[in-house]
């Protein structure tokens, strides 16, 4: 869906007025405005979803663990952070 800017619409209006089509544009304007708002809403939702998801993919080894640990880093991507949390407990229990 093409999104017309305010400047584009103004230019179109001027041309339509000169061509005496202003009445037609007046009828079409609410439809155009509603479509434009819908398109902007879809774009804003998309950007918000990407903003939330991207940090999770930016550093997969730093995925947040459960609340027992805020952030876990590991040089073994296939090892779950929970493994290290459990290991920290084991060491404390054995010491």
């Amino acid at each position: 869906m093409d999104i017309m800017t305010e400047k584009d619409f103004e230019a179109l209006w001027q041309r339509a007025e000169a061509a005496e089509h202003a009445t037609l544009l007046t009828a079409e304007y609410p439809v155009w405005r509603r479509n434009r708002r819908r398109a902007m809403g879809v774009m804003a939702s998309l950007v918000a979803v990407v903003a939330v998801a991207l940090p999770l993919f930016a550093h997969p080894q730093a995925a947040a663990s459960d609340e027992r640990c805020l952030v876990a880093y590991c040089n073994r991507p296939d090892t779950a952070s929970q493994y290290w949390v459990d290991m920290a407990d084991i060491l404390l229990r054995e010491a």
Partner: protein
Amino acid sequence: MKKALMTMVLVALLAGCTHQTELPPEGALYRHYAARQDLGVAQLNGFKLSDTVRVDIVMLQAENDEAWQQLTEEFGIEGDEGTVSWLGDIDDPVQRTQWTGEPVMRVIASHSQRTIGFYRLDNEAQYDALIDYQLEKIENNN
């Protein structure tokens, strides 16, 4: 309105990435060993000891006997069974020290797990919470 929304999203995006990718300065120990192929290396930031106290931990786990032997020599760990524990210097955990209220590393080395844990203790609250947590774990295990 649109510009404000985009700005807010970009700020949130940048803040999130920074939080996830930047190791704190005390991540030097992790970085020192992270490239080793024969070691599993992990850093746990904000390991929960109680409702109000968390600590940062670095773990080194040897993948074979040779790597473990090398670690025990590097950190001056004697014996070949059981668990060894000491308070180490915050910048050089090999050096044994005592609790004076200054930041230290509580180091625990387990022969059976072939693992060394470095528990960073910056203040007395963390020091006390670690002991309480450890006692709680031992009691629950018995």
